[in-house]
């Protein structure tokens, strides 16, 4: 474990004083935009540790579910209970890595500095964070000139800079080359090993098999299946998941 990844003693003390935000319970979550129902009664229980993969065809509501869980969108109906509490302020204790990283128009290092400063973290951690994601040699370069894989690693470093207890990843490796995918998976796995709860949206079967402890399969705005990865991949219970895994079109 690198120095940068290790939470400071002060941070540990603060975390210890706060009520735990895990496990997560989602009850009858509905999200509507006008007449369109995007999520239709999602219920879900996630434990305190591990990596949950959210899978499902396009339009099944995966990304919106992440945004709801992260507090960026409010549900039309239903409850999200973090640590058993409905009204807990959790966004600051979580991080979300978007499919297309939003990088500031600054240098690579300044992107990390910005988050460390905004969140009152120790700015001396910046170099170690960049080293952790393999971008130390690009610290002074403009962030928006990074390649897709590098940009996503910077987004990950920025997310890790906030010391999240839960990290959401919304298809962070979409359209990346295999080496970049593996580099990102290594960073995410390392975070999981340190106790960060990972909730990961992907369409990549190989990635899901490599990373998942459990899989939530969404279909038509509902949880069609939630199983341990060891059961989901060899023997999915629902027909839509079976079709999806077999490469047949699922609508």
């Amino acid at each position, binding site marked *: 474990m690198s120095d940068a990844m290790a939470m400071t003693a002060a941070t540990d003390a603060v975390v210890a004083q706060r009520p735990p935000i895990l496990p997560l319970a989602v009850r009858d979550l509905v999200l509507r935009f006008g007449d369109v129902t995007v999520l239709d009664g999602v219920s879900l229980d996630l434990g305190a540790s591990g990596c949950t993969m959210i899978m499902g065809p396009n339009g099944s509501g995966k990304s919106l579910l992440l945004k709801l869980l992260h507090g960026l969108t409010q549900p039309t109906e239903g409850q999200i209970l973090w640590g058993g509490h409905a009204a807990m302020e959790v966004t600051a204790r979580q991080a979300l890595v*978007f499919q297309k990283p939003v990088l500031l128009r600054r240098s690579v290092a300044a992107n990390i500095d910005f988050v460390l400063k905004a969140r009152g973290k120790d700015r001396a951690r910046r170099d170690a964070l960049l080293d952790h994601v393999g971008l130390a040699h690009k610290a002074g370069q403009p962030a928006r000139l990074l390649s897709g894989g590098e940009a996503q690693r910077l987004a990950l470093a920025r997310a890790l800079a906030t010391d999240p207890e839960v990290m959401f990843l919304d298809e962070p490796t979409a359209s990346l080359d295999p080496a970049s995918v593996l580099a990102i998976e290594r960073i995410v796995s390392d975070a999981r090993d340190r106790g960060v709860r990972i909730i990961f949206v992907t369409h990549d079967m190989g990635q899901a098999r490599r990373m998942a402890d459990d899989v939530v399969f969404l279909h038509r705005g509902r949880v069609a299946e939630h199983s341990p990865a060891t059961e989901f991949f060899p023997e999915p219970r629902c027909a839509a998941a079976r079709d999806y895994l077999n490469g047949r079109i699922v609508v």
Partner: protein
Amino acid sequence: MQSIGDALSLAVALVLSGDADLLEIVLLSLRVSLTATAIACLIGLPVGALVAIGRFRGRNAVLIVMNALMGLPPVVVGLLVYLHLSRSGPLGFLGLLYTPTAMIIAQTILIAPIVAALSRQVLEDLHTEYAEQFRSLCLTRLQTIQALLWDARYSLLTVGLAGFGRAVAEVGAVIIVGGNIDHLTRVMTTAIALETSKGDLALALALGLILLVIALGVNAAVQSVRMTAARQAYV
């Protein structure tokens, strides 16, 4: 009445000779307009940023007013400032009428809405891109505004330039509140108007040439900064 050719050659000679009166007028013009631009940016940029990220009742009305104020007629601004600063006006006790300060006030009123309206558009576009990430990072409103202003700095330079261009080129407001007093409130535009009416085209043309050179120089400098920034993907 001189021919244009004679006037032009006299104007160039005047500029090259470093005429003290000419220099005084140019320096006062720059002092007044740069100060007004700086103050207008201090007021206009935060206002533009607040409106860009704010979602409040009456926002559309604010946008309409902001955009409408961009077209404020300089003579009307001059008249309003004159009414306030004249001896019988509410701010007459300050004794500012016919001073460079009065000219700075008038130009600030003239260009602050331009800076606010143009920066609002720039910052709103940037905020659309950053908003979700910033909400995820739980930034305060102040942190959001600071980040937007910094990341849009090169685009905002152009906004400042637009304000400066309007200030340095206007004549209606400064001639009313400044009075075009020699060695005190005479700036390039008011001097050009006066010298033209007197038939002294050489000085008018010399000042016009300098105005053009300043406009070109400032534009070139800003364009060069923006091109450098664009190469680094900072725009």
